[in-house]
């Protein structure tokens, strides 16, 4: 593997490769995030922390479905006050490995987003990812803030006012005006966009006639949503000025290359952990490097946005 090919800089942060552990996967403890970093991730995103502790939904919460995953975990987290020391410890361990830490946050109100961001910023993460698009907590929080430009902008403004650390806002794909929402968020000071969150979905077991998730509906991720994510990133990259963490269905090095060609600066990897475990990051990195060598790409920059740039 030619490691040099994969090196990149994102908002001034140096990464050994563009692969980011997506939020909600392996992001629950310092030891697990450290493991993901050791096993090859370029950056690690912690599981979303909110204002107070949540146990989340009851089982079944997550099911592998072919090369895809459906989940409704329900934002299980210890609350931001408890999360902050976990992130401080994680940051210390990741620093030693040269891997940045992205901290994901969520909240139920615009004001709370700012408050949670302030608490989490104490851990000095390299970036705060603002999760305004979890599809699995409608019963507690109502319509996601990602549903329209005004609410997405309001949350961004609240977080921006609360912290100076770079922020990326995580958007949902199931909106008719994604570009408009992204522009509104960038106008309020988002330094980056993470696209996309999981896609609202459900599975029903024919023999019981019941939804398989305890929450009945959930979020679809993995290979099934790769085309949805590619389209979203491709559209956004052409109209916004900030970098994008392209997330959705990346399972191989080729998938990662395609996400970068759509315009992503970094590539989130989540559901692909199902088959390989944390070792998936090293595999995708190797495959991406091999692809670049074979195709004669000298840098990630050379691939970025190739799907829409005039060549």
């Amino acid at each position: 593997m030619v490691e040099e090919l994969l090196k990149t800089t994102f908002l001034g942060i140096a990464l050994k490769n563009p692969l980011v552990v997506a939020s909600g996967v392996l992001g629950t403890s310092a030891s697990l995030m450290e493991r993901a970093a050791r096993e090859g991730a370029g950056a690690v995103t912690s599981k979303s922390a909110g204002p107070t502790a949540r146990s989340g939904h009851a089982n079944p919460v997550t099911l592998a479905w072919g090369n895809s995953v459906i989940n409704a975990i329900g934002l299980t987290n210890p609350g931001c006050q408890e999360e902050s020391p976990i992130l401080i410890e994680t940051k210390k361990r990741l620093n030693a490995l040269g891997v940045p830490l992205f901290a994901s946050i969520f909240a139920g109100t615009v004001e709370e987003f700012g408050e949670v961001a302030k608490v989490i910023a104490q851990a000095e993460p390299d970036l705060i990812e603002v999760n305004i698009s979890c599809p699995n907590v409608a019963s507690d929080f109502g319509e996601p803030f990602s549903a329209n430009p005004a609410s997405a902008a309001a949350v961004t403004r609240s977080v921006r006012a609360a912290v100076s650390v770079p922020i990326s806002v995580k958007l949902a794909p199931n909106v008719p005006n994604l570009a408009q929402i992204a522009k509104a968020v960038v106008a309020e000071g988002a330094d980056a966009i993470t696209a996309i969150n999981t896609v609202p979905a459900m599975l029903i077991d024919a023999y019981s006639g019941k939804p398989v998730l305890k929450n009945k509906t959930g979020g679809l991720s993995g290979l099934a949503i790769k085309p949805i994510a590619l389209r979203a990133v491709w559209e956004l990259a052409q109209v916004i000025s900030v970098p994008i963490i392209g997330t959705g269905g990346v399972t191989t090095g080729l998938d990662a290359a395609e996400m970068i060609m759509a315009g992503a600066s970094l590539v989130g990897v989540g559901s692909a952990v199902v088959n390989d475990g944390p070792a998936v990051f090293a595999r995708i990195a190797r495959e991406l490097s091999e692809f670049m060598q074979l195709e004669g790409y000298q840098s990630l920059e050379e691939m970025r946005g190739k799907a829409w740039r005039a060549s």
Partner: protein
Amino acid sequence: MKGANMEHRASGGLMRAFEVANVIRENAATQTLLLKGRLEEARPGQFVMVWLPDVGEKPYSIAAAVPLALTISSVGLVSSALVQLQPGERVWIRGPLGNGFQLTGEKHLLVGGGYGAAPLAFLAKDALRQNGQVTVCLGAKSASDLLLERRLEEMGCQLRVATEDGSKGFQGLVTAVVEQAIVDNKPDCVYACGPTGMLLALAELCKRYQLPAQLSFEGLMRCGVGLCGSCELPEEVCLQVGLPTGWLACHDGPVAHLS
């Protein structure tokens, strides 16, 4: 038509419906569900996630693969619903999941603490089929809590029993009985399933006697497929037994192979 498993269709990781063929009472709190259908690829020590619609989903070790059997002790919401199932009713299974035990050598020492005995008959059967010599140490609070004792004996295992109240066998913890069995039988490997405290004590014991140990750890399983992090073994436990930290019971285990 009942039983999706009969169609042997790839489930892609989702749960499949199995019909209960028979129910065997093991002790006051424990039943073995014999299911119609098999989980041919399952190995001893692997687990399945068992779902009852509208009730919930929990992990259980596999008691037998052909036909599929689950030994379930009533301790919570899902398990108390499972032990009430009658022949003809259904359960939903996803798996097999996890790594399982791997028979090493010819003289095997199996250890079950409390409900942890559930996967041992499956392992003992495989070991005996390979003409191995099998000793099983069972520990429980009281004689009435012992699990699978008679079954294992009838299979041809040599049994050693410890109860905390002394109502059967040695009075005390199973680890004392295990140490005696190590001294007497000089086994090639120790295989254990039970509470973390027992597993930690066994790890120490096996280290002292320079024996390889295969310890099946319990974890809070949610996704069961290595994503959610719920079943991560506490870091201090990993360090104590010499496992890499960030060890996930569902993906890296549930069996820790210590040499």
